[in-house]
């Protein structure tokens, strides 16, 4: 480069940066007991980038894009009745590492039915499809970062990893945040499930406490008596850097 590669941290157009992702909290790309990761994991080191506008910005979604039943998996695919299974509420806060709620962000979720069968053309597990259950939903968090949805508790299902591998009951989550660098997909597990600590995806997380934070506790206080139980699942996205220099001394 002809121009010196100076490291001046803030342009006028760039007023926030993300804290570096702590990759020790995440499963590394290669976790051999999860066999598919062997050929799908990069071997070379990631190139670290400081935030630019391309990373601190990200897509914005509006309420008009969601239907009224999008966060109600009990009713959003009901054909001639309601789905079979344990009725539950799943709810929680999406916050960043600084503890601030992430408002108006898109949270999407998908799961198997009560018998562990996915409504997907490639799932051939012998447990039947539930004619009244689709298995997906989405919600925008409110101004405080809160989301909720109603669903049926998913069942465990077998998968071709080891000969006798079974996934714990889980719900997949996709979250956006305010910048594309916060993009995250994860899975929520249920308190007390004995399959959790036999699962190579859970065991691929090197930090035990980080793995435990994927387990949603039963939340009786949020249950609706005679109707449905509740589980609480809080999600934390990357935080933003907050330095005196950027926000105070330089002023804006």
């Amino acid at each position, binding site marked *: 480069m*002809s121009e010196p590669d100076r490291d001046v941290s803030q342009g006028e157009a*760039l007023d926030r940066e993300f804290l570096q992702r702590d990759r020790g909290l995440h499963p590394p790309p290669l976790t051999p007991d999860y066999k*598919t990761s062997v*050929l799908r994991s990069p071997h070379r080191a990631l190139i670290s980038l400081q935030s630019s506008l391309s990373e601190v*910005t990200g897509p914005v979604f509006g309420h008009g894009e969601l*239907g009224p039943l999008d966060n109600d998996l009990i009713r959003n695919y009901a054909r001639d009745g309601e789905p079979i299974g344990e009725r539950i509420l799943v709810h929680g806060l999406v916050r960043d590492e600084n503890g601030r709620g992430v408002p108006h962000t898109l949270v999407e979720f998908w799961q198997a039915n009560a018998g562990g069968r996915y409504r997907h053309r490639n799932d051939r597990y012998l447990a039947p499809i539930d004619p009244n259950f689709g298995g997906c939903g989405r919600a925008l968090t409110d101004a405080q970062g809160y989301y909720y949805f109603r669903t049926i508790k998913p069942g465990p299902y077998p998968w071709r990893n080891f000969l006798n591998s079974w996934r714990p009951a889980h719900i997949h989550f996709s979250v956006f945040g305010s910048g594309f660098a916060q993009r995250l997909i994860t*899975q929520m597990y249920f308190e007390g499930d004995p399959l959790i600590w036999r699962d190579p995806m859970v065991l691929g997380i090197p930090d035990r406490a980080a793995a435990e934070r994927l387990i949603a506790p039963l939340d009786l206080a949020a249950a609706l008596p005679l109707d449905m139980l509740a589980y609480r699942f809080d999600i934390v996205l990357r935080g933003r850097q907050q330095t005196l220099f950027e926000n105070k001394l330089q002023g804006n």
Partner: protein
Amino acid sequence: MVQPLPDRLRETASQTAGPYVHIGLIPHQAGFDIFETTFSNVLVTPATRGERIRIEGRVFDGADEPVRDVLVEIWQANAAGRYNHPADRQQAKPIDESFRGWGRTGSDFETGIWQFETIKPGPVDGRKGHRPMAPHISLWIAARGINIGLQTRLYFADEADANAADPVLNLIEQRSRRETLLARREERDVPTYVLDIRLQGPQETVFFDV
């Protein structure tokens, strides 16, 4: 002993999107329709400003087989080089209200090909003291076997001068590796930029810790 730092929350751990990611994020590809509105790989409307292009490619695993169950999302600036997001304060460049700048798709279950219909982005300001970034599109890919989403960038091979000055490409020490991010232009019904992504091996694509 020293004073403890105030508690900070820790980021939620990533997990793979799994083979059935389509159910939640692209239900029609899983084989059913459920939402009134769905997100897609078409980022343009008739009102969108800029040159219409297609971007296309495949993702290959370490055995050189196409990954047929991959999810690809893109994020890009508009034709003027501005992002449709409040954190973008490049006031001299107009926002295009008919361009969100984001799309998603799944690779074809048979061929492994993914595609987007979009516009060619303009150059975006770099960090203060740096050159403008060459036109680029951010890609994020998730799939069965990928434990944490992979971030990379698509640059345009026909922007050689801008690419040579790009502050991000210049961070990649091995010059030959920069080429893994360059999409080549093909003149078809719509000008198409082709970028294959290699997860592993001698031609491994550069992935970023952003």
